[in-house]
């Protein structure tokens, strides 16, 4: 439903044929592997603005907003309160389907590209994207506070990020951006959503995606733990015992 609504809005604000720019998008990789020395990854995204005969001249140039969304997660945001002198979690909100990773890269500061209330409607920016994942009914100021806390905490931990000049112009029509994944970014599918704007008006939108996956050994361990928990558990215990026994043989004093 939400997606359908977004499409309808996009269709309304992007009248076909009136503006003739289109976007060509390419990622440096569609599959990022986690190996044993993984400490995060970097991807490059390229976008080319294609113009045709009907395209009017854009005096102020083009703006690009790239939104990268990691796999959806259900999270609980908790707030500590002082109870009998102890700081314990008192209130909490369950937030379903928020992105596990979120990055908004822009060619200029977002507020210079588009007015905040329109950015909100187009789901541009960290808080608008997170808000868009939540049901609109019964939304209270308290809910907004918990959402803001989620965005702030994840911004501090590097899972959410905003880069004002994360998109750079290579030529007048070619853009490049670096997507940085921190080591703690969750495994799964990442959606890269690229929007082209000029003079605060959205002109074109393209979506592509990439996958963050564990490679050979890491995947083997994770699969074994999930799919064959009994075998995995017995193997883990056996490994420990054998190592314990080996060390007693290796360091035997007599």
């Amino acid at each position: 439903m939400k997606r359908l609504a977004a499409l309808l809005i996009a269709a309304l604000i992007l009248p076909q044929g009136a503006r003739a720019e289109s976007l060509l998008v390419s990622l440096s990789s569609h599959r990022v592997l986690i190996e044993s020395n993984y400490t995060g990854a970097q991807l490059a995204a390229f976008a080319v603005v294609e113009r045709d005969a009907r395209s009017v001249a854009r005096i102020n140039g083009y703006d690009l907003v790239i939104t990268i969304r990691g796999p959806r997660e259900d999270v609980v945001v908790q707030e500590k309160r002082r109870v009998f002198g102890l700081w314990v979690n008192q209130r909490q909100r369950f937030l379903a389907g928020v992105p596990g990773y979120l990055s908004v890269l822009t060619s200029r500061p977002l507020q210079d590209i588009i007015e905040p209330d329109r950015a909100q409607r187009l789901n541009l920016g960290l808080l608008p994207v997170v808000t868009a994942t939540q049901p609109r009914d019964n939304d209270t100021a308290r809910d907004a506070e918990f959402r803001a806390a989620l965005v702030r905490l994840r911004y501090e931990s590097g899972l959410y990020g905003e880069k004002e000049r994360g998109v750079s112009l290579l030529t007048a029509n070619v853009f490049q951006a670096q997507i940085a994944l921190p080591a703690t970014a969750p495994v799964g599918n990442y959606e890269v959503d690229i929007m082209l704007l000029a003079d605060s008006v959205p002109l074109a939108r393209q979506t592509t995606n990439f996958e963050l996956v564990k490679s050979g050994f890491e995947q083997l361990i994770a699969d074994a733990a999930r799919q064959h928990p009994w075998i995995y558990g017995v193997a883990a215990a056996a490994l420990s015992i054998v190592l314990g026994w080996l060390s007693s043989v290796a360091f035997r004093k007599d």
Partner: protein
Amino acid sequence: MEIYLPIAEMPINMFTILGMSAAVGFISGMFGVGGGFLMTPFLIFTGVPPAIAVASVSAQIAGSSMTGLISYWRRNAVDARLGLVLIGGGAVGTWLGILFFNQMRRLGHLELVIVLSYVALFSVIGGLMLLESLRAVLHAQKARPATAPKRERPWYFELPLRMIFHRSRMAASVLPIAALAIGVSFAGAVLGIGGGFIIVPALIYLFHVPTSVVIGTSLMQILFTMIVATVLHSVTNQSVDMVLALLLIIGGVIGAQFGARAGQNLRAEVFRLLLAIMVLGVGLRFASEIIVRPNDLFSVRVEQRAR
């Protein structure tokens, strides 16, 4: 050098973990304890999710108690019969502990339960150990002639199901012994500790088990309960990280060898005093988590992740 932990889904500095587990291994070799009570908190404060820290440390304790048990067994310092009774209680306690662990995890209270249990258990036991060892240190300085206190048979020895334990030179009901094992292994499964520092003094003071067999016997119980805990944690919540456990075992084994040598030159009272200070320290460190106003009142916990 960073290494990626496949279950915790985070990279961790290999040398930090090896150094940390070697340091804990050194202490555990010195004091003849498993060291889980130091290792689990260390991991939690490093940023490893508590559930994964608890479950992976149980695998490590299984390894280190295996090493210990073999050396005590060679010296014939294990009461196998008493060990079996402890194992029986331990199996029940571990099972209950895992059930409780998973229930709390589902309800989202696991972290609070771990923090509060560490605070309560470690402050109380650390405090008692500190008092006892301070008294012992002071007495040793007065150089009083050591008179063996006349021991009365406590009432709980006379409960039904009595058994004779030759190696421990006692005849007592198995009920209080099993109850002790249930309690300690329950805590062990929830907190990722072997519980040696609880069960050893308990066997000495409550059951008058000779000090010559008490450590070997408790290691027998710890080995068994930690094997069960490792398997059950794997089966019920998939939080045993084998890579992490492997690093912990390697570091722990190396540290323990040096610790055992260092421990031989230490006086028994000083030894217990140091251990008490460490246990109390861990309790206070956890207490500071809930007493000091946190930097950020909000926190995020991931419940479910799309795959």
